């Protein structure tokens, strides 16, 4: 019963916490997306009011009120329909996202690396998105950034958006683990291979919707293996979303028993994954 659970957990200010306490942007956006999809407009509208009020002057959102810096959750807010969020708010969110990259792909960093005699890795040439500005790009914020911009680009294409999405996808392909799937960021650390994680693999596959080739195929095989051994709600949700995005969700799939849905994003994303598997996704059109 995820929807009643979400309704019960809404804070008096209209937002949601992860489990308890004050409202944060990530759980609030996921809850609004899930409730709006389920047709509960009153609770969703109160959540939307919280989200609208939390937008910062630079167009982005902070992780929670008071933190004082726009960050990766802006991608989530940009997944909200423009007509619900507000056209101007949505436009500014898209602009913030388009302008944000990981530090390792910034001109300043690459020039510094070059001057210090360091090599510019091919992994730095395609800009992804960081968790917070001033740090490197990682798979999760990059995947969410792509999903947000790709959705917008299909609805209202503007110059530069498509190339930013392509660059983000190149980032993901560059960071694919040996054998397929994705870790959080690096494919290797000090010469050792990094292993793939289920949730990041699912998320990247969702962001690579429509991208075909051996890398996608290899990662789909990894995702299908993960799906059979799934132990967490986050992993299950994103594997289902990733496989649905690629049209590869096994028919009649039954989740392993005993998976606990402990946080608001886990509960809400399960609703969104159900929708995606049934052919209706808020993450892509």
């Amino acid at each position: 019963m995820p929807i009643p659970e979400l309704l019960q957990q809404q804070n008096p200010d209209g937002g949601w916490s992860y489990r308890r306490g004050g409202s944060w942007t990530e759980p609030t956006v996921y809850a609004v997306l899930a409730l709006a999809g389920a047709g509960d407009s009153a609770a969703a509208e109160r959540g939307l009011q919280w989200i609208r009020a939390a937008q910062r002057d630079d167009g982005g959102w902070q992780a929670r009120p008071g933190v004082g810096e726009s960050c990766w959750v802006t991608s989530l807010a940009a997944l909200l329909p423009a007509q619900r969020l507000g056209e101007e708010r949505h436009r500014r969110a898209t602009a913030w996202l388009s302008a944000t990259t990981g530090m390792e792909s910034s001109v300043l960093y690459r020039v510094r690396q070059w001057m210090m005699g360091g090599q510019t890795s091919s992994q730095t040439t395609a800009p992804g998105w960081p968790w917070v500005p001033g740090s490197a790009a990682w798979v999760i914020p990059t995947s969410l950034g792509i999903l947000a911009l790709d959705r917008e680009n299909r609805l209202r294409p503007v110059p530069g958006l498509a190339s930013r999405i392509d660059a983000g996808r190149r980032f993901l392909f560059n960071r694919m683990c040996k054998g397929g799937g994705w870790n959080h960021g690096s494919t290797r650390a000090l010469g050792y291979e990094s292993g793939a994680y289920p949730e990041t693999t699912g998320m990247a596959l969702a962001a690579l919707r429509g991208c075909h080739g051996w890398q996608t195929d290899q990662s789909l095989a990894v995702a299908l293996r993960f799906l059979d051994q799934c132990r967490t709600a986050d992993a299950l949700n994103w594997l289902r979303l990733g496989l649905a995005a690629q049209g590869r969700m096994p028919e009649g799939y039954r989740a392993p028993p005993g998976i606990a849905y402990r946080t608001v994003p886990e509960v809400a994303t399960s609703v969104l994954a159900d929708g995606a598997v049934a052919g209706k996704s808020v993450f892509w059109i």
Partner: protein
Amino acid sequence: MGGAMTRRDWLTGSAAALVATGCARPVHLTQSEATIVRAPAYDQSLYDIVRRLVASQGAAARGRAVVIKPNLVEFEPESAINTHPLLVHAACEAFRALGASQVTIAEGPGHRRDTLDLAEAAGYFQTIPGFEDCFVDLNLDEVTLVDLPRRFSKLKRVYLPNTVLGAALVVSMPKMKTHHWTGATLSMKNLFGVVPGGVYGWPKNVLHWAGIHESIADLHTVFPRQFTLVDGIVGMEGNGPIQGVSKPMGVLVAGTDPLAVDATCCRLMRIDPTRIGYLRLVAGDPAVFAESNVRQTGEPIAALARPFALIPQFRALRLESGA
């Protein structure tokens, strides 16, 4: 709390005095001592061992809020990645027996977002009765922006979780492991887990960009005194902290000065602590944590030291005989 000043009160209200004195802290603890005890296995004997360790260190927990901070990293219950749940439970019981008003287990893993699932996979739910009720995910806790009392990195301030800032005593319970960026991960590096992923992301990459050693030293200035209890019963060598190999050591190392405890652990691992960047930064002068300057109690280092395998990049850290 009986009116005891919390770390948050102290940091936000008296930062200037703190910097000036450099020694204010919520509980009185002894300095520069490290105790090594044998603990051959994760079994029931740990409860008595830990109770004696806690009592002998004189941690003033009575009537106060204690936060126990283990090292939870990965979903690998059979590996030596995470602090063992039986040891954490033994610490909880020991501090409750000492009369702590509240004992909270708290952790903010660095790159896995589903903390409770991670704790469950690591055996915490099964081993610690009522675990979910006494656990706080530090990645998602309420936060306060704290000025760093002394700065080693470019960071001036850092958001920290209120659960930890409000504790009278922080008990750091790291795993004794090698680390592929810092050489060794012990009580000071364990503090990366108090930095909230909800604010900084997974991993907390801002700390890496600010300098890993420098950030560890920064955090140490916020928590200069903790009770530290290192899980060295089975440590990790080689490509730690995740992909290394289990290293049975059969020891626990405890103390109230993280510098002394970490230096002692390094010596047990046959790693030269004077070559660990963050220890050098914190101490200023490596002589501060020279073996002769750490009051060693319990078992002697020489009796239990065994070299941890080091990845090629860290072979220079090897403690030479007699060093």
